[in-house]
């Protein structure tokens, strides 16, 4: 209802939409960029673009999904402009050589049993911050946006094989980091 009103040009209705979804949009941008100022700028730009394209929203997805997709595309555009969305030479060597990470021992720490939900989120978030931007972006698109491999590949401008390798590396790294978590750090 609010969206329909905003689509008719009602700026107050649009402001209400911004107020309701601004944190989610910002959080998604921050998940990728890991910089508060950049994430704030991108989220604002996403809102401006969404106002211009509001007539195109047909309700195929929720409004929150629609606006966060705009924010993610802007994040990816920014990363491409800054040439940050490219595999580092070490990553390329790893992935082309068969992935060093597959030789790492397996970890199955029972974090969920040891931490509260909020603590778990914080723990995982800090671990994700340690990943490279390419690996983190692949995780955000696949896990938070719930995109399939081929859609992640299309958004990131790489092959499906690269997406799979990046996800694999990111998950194995996260598991190794989380295995080192000390309970007292989150209490």
């Amino acid at each position, binding site marked *: 209802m609010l969206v329909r009103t905003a689509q008719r040009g009602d*700026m107050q209705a649009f*402001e209400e939409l*911004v*107020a309701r979804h*601004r*944190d989610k949009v*910002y*959080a*998604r941008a*921050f*998940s990728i960029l890991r910089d*508060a100022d950049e*994430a*704030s700028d991108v*989220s*604002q*730009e996403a*809102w*401006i673009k969404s*106002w*211009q394209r509001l007539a195109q929203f047909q309700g195929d997805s929720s409004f929150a999904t629609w606006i966060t997709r705009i924010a993610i595309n802007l994040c990816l555009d920014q990363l491409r402009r800054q040439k940050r969305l490219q595999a580092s030479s070490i990553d390329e060597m790893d992935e082309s050589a*068969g*992935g060093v990470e*597959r*030789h790492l021992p*397996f*970890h*199955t*720490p029972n*974090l*969920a049993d040891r931490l509260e*939900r909020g603590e*778990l*989120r*914080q723990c*995982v*978030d800090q671990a*994700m911050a340690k990943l490279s931007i390419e690996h983190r972006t692949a*995780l955000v698109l*696949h*896990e*938070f946006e719930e995109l*399939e*491999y081929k859609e992640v590949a299309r958004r990131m401008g790489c092959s499906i*094989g690269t997406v*799979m*390798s990046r*996800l*694999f590396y990111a*998950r*194995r790294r*996260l*598991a190794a980091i*989380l295995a080192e978590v000390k309970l007292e750090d989150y209490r």
Partner: protein
Amino acid sequence: MISQHDALEIQSFVDGELPRAQAERVGRRLESDPEARALSEELRLTRAWVRSGEAVARLEDSREFYWSRIRTGIERVERQGRPASSWAVRAIGLWRFAAATCVALAAAAFLIFPHSPTDKSPEGWLAVDQEIESPLENANTFSFRSEAARMTVVWVNTQVN
């Protein structure tokens, strides 16, 4: 030891990206291969933790401040997209007409006026690629003009006959 191909296949199985027949095959392997099963379990747990919820990063800006910046941005793009005033439109149109006319005249001049050497070329018209010597009334000087090189050379003979 699990190969890179098999490791990625196990990941695809965990993510539900495999076609049915392939998923069944991988599923059977997991039942009989402890190493593959351990990898699958780790990937599944990690996936669940990540999906347990994105850490909520909140904007520190107040609602009014954040909205004021968005509204300013919207007004800016709307101004950029607004059609120009009538006088500006006319001025731009006039400028375009004048520029097009000049180009057309220059092209016409190029086509109409001869630019190749002919015997009938009127005096004063120079061939584009011809060099001309013209002895002047003063026998002690010669001028030499080349349109191709766009230069004029004057030879001064200091010896008086």
